[in-house]
């Protein structure tokens, strides 16, 4: 495992980080601990809620996957939820990713992601401006966000609440003159309030990868890596199966839409008895086309 310390001005120092120095009131980044190998930078950051919905996680995976297939480095913060999905989506599409930590490289935080951390290190880099043993203190994270913003040419915000860390990344990005994009979300509930407000304030809506194409380096616009067959859930091996779904199954999927629906409501909407519904849902869960969440909510696995 290669671990090294980069000082500002080093030949390998990412040029895009120098923009941070030009920014008034921005804490200076003296040096960085790097573990792994730094991929091509600037990349694109995909950030969002730690408590993301199933749809949010899926969205982040898809965006990161699409970017990865164009050879773009995906930058995120290795937090739970969207960050984690962004790294994962990028890696399963065969891309390279950078995780900027809010603690020292030797600190295993958040503990749930230690496996993901290994894979990120293997096909990209972990970066931290903190000492190897520094604890994940709360004020580290907003500071860390300036590095995420610095390492990318654009930030895509997926599902952010008002006051969330993703919005602080977006703010740094604006200050640095990077493009900020946000994925439009439901106006019910608070889950998308922050990202939707970004859109109202002039952020570019992200609907698919074409929305970001002009911001990518020229080589990335042309190049599209082939989709990997063994990729994970979102790689839609389901197109063939989709056609074969009988009426009830497709009706059920149509009802679910983007937001998970409770089993109870599904039964009412489909006019099925509890037993028939359980069999239908069970078969679909077994086939992997839906997932049952704690509490009895039913979610799609593919969009």
């Amino acid at each position: 495992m290669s671990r090294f310390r980069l000082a500002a001005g080093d030949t390998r120092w990412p040029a895009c980080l120098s923009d941070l120095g030009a920014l008034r009131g921005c804490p200076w980044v003296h040096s960085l601990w790097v573990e792994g190998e730094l991929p091509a930078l600037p990349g694109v950051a995909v950030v969002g809620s730690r408590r993301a919905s199933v749809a949010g996680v899926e969205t982040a995976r898809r965006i990161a996957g699409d970017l990865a297939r164009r050879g773009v480095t995906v930058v995120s913060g290795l937090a739970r939820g969207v960050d984690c999905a962004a790294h994962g989506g990028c890696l399963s599409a065969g891309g390279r990713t950078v995780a900027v930590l809010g603690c020292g490289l030797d600190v295993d935080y958040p503990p749930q992601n230690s496996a993901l951390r290994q894979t990120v290190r293997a096909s990209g880099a972990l970066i931290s401006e903190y000492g190897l043993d520094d604890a994940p203190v709360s004020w580290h994270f907003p500071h860390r966000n300036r590095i995420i913003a610095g390492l990318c040419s654009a930030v895509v915000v997926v599902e952010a609440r008002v006051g969330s860390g993703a919005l602080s990344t977006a703010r740094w990005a604006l200050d640095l003159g990077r493009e900020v994009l946000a994925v439009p979300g439901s106006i019910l509930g608070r889950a998308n309030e922050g990202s939707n407000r970004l859109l109202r304030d002039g952020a570019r809506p992200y609907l698919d990868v074409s929305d970001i194409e002009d911001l990518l380096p020229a080589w990335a616009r042309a190049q599209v890596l082939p989709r990997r067959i063994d990729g994970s859930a979102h790689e839609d091996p389901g197109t063939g199966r989709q056609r074969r779904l009988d009426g009830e199954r497709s009706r059920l999927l149509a009802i679910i839409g983007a937001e998970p629906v409770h089993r109870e409501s599904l039964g009412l909407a489909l006019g099925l008895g509890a037993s028939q519904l359980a069999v239908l849902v069970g078969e679909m869960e077994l086939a992997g086309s839906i997932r049952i969440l704690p509490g009895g909510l039913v979610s799609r696995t593919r969009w």
Partner: protein
Amino acid sequence: MPLDEVACIGELALDGGVRGVAGMLPMARRLLASGIRHLVVATENAAEAAMVEGTSVIGVDSLAMAVAHLEGRIPLQPVSAPPMGDVPPHGGVDLAAVRGQALAKRALEIAAAGRHNLLMLGAPGAGKTMLARAFAGLLPDLGSDEALEVAALYSLRGRLSDRPLTSLRPPLRAPHHSVSRAGLIGGGAGIAHPGEVSLAHRGVLFLDEICEFPRGHLEALRQPLEERRVAVTRVRATVVFPADFVLVAAANPCPCGRLGQPSGPSCRCPEEVINRYQSRLSGPMRDRIDMTVEVPRLGGDALLGGANEEPTAKVRERVAAAQARQLERAAATGVTANALLEGDQLLHACRLDTRARDALTIAGEKWRLSARAYHRVLRVGRTIADLAGEDRVGREAVIEAFQLRGQVQ
């Protein structure tokens, strides 16, 4: 009649009056078994003692009355036994009164048919208590021997006011989580009393907010859940009480109770807190709970619509038919309820077809099921097939059983 063929039981007061005592019914049964069929007891105990068939019971109010009767001076007429089942149906909740909750109701039906222990997860106010009360109504009437056995336990506890003596309905006990261990399992000073687990014998033990019960209490439930009886050890003796109940437990899905709510404010409990909360139910308890069902708090339209709810009586008929099928099989296996099937007996009873086996294999790989989890699914699947009147457990039954296995592993 010679006095050595007569038993006189009662509490003698200083004024010569005779008062009733607890445990008359089991005493009368025991006496009859040892050949004593003439009893003289307090009037308030007379009907209870007379329930034991073959016993002749005289009720007296005072010692003087008893002496006069035994000397033949003023002979009294034996009390006749109250007819079994001659009580108005218990004021439980009819299933039709519970709106919506189709899945929970289906789970109740399956649980009643196979005597499976059931866990309901849902926010406060979702209707878990109402469902549990309706559940007792789904169980068929007890046989008169069983009813007498139950009445004997209430008699021992001195709790006949809780339950009409002659009731044939399976009992429902719902102790609060502040219950003492002795109150729940049995015990007490002096002679051991049966606890709530025994008062729920042949009926339902409903533990609301099961995560709030002290851990020791839940550990102590292990023996009755596994052996269908409970041994209460006192200083002088160990007493074994029957405790064959269906456990219906209810819990919030997370400390705030809002996890997985279809509408309203969403849950804000951190994942670790949810895991810790649900792990209170881990281990031996979970192994004995065959089914888990979520009970969502429904919005107004769901509560007002769907007026066509099935009444308890109709579901109970299906439950009784499914239980009859289990009894037919019991002739060969000796196991009277699907919830008690284990190992080879279970596999043999299921007679899985190929499509069902396929589903089990795929699901087993997908969710990395333990052997115990497999068995739970098979037991529940067996009951689903019994409710459908099928000899073999098919794919649909297995798939439906998977849906009732619950998320917590």
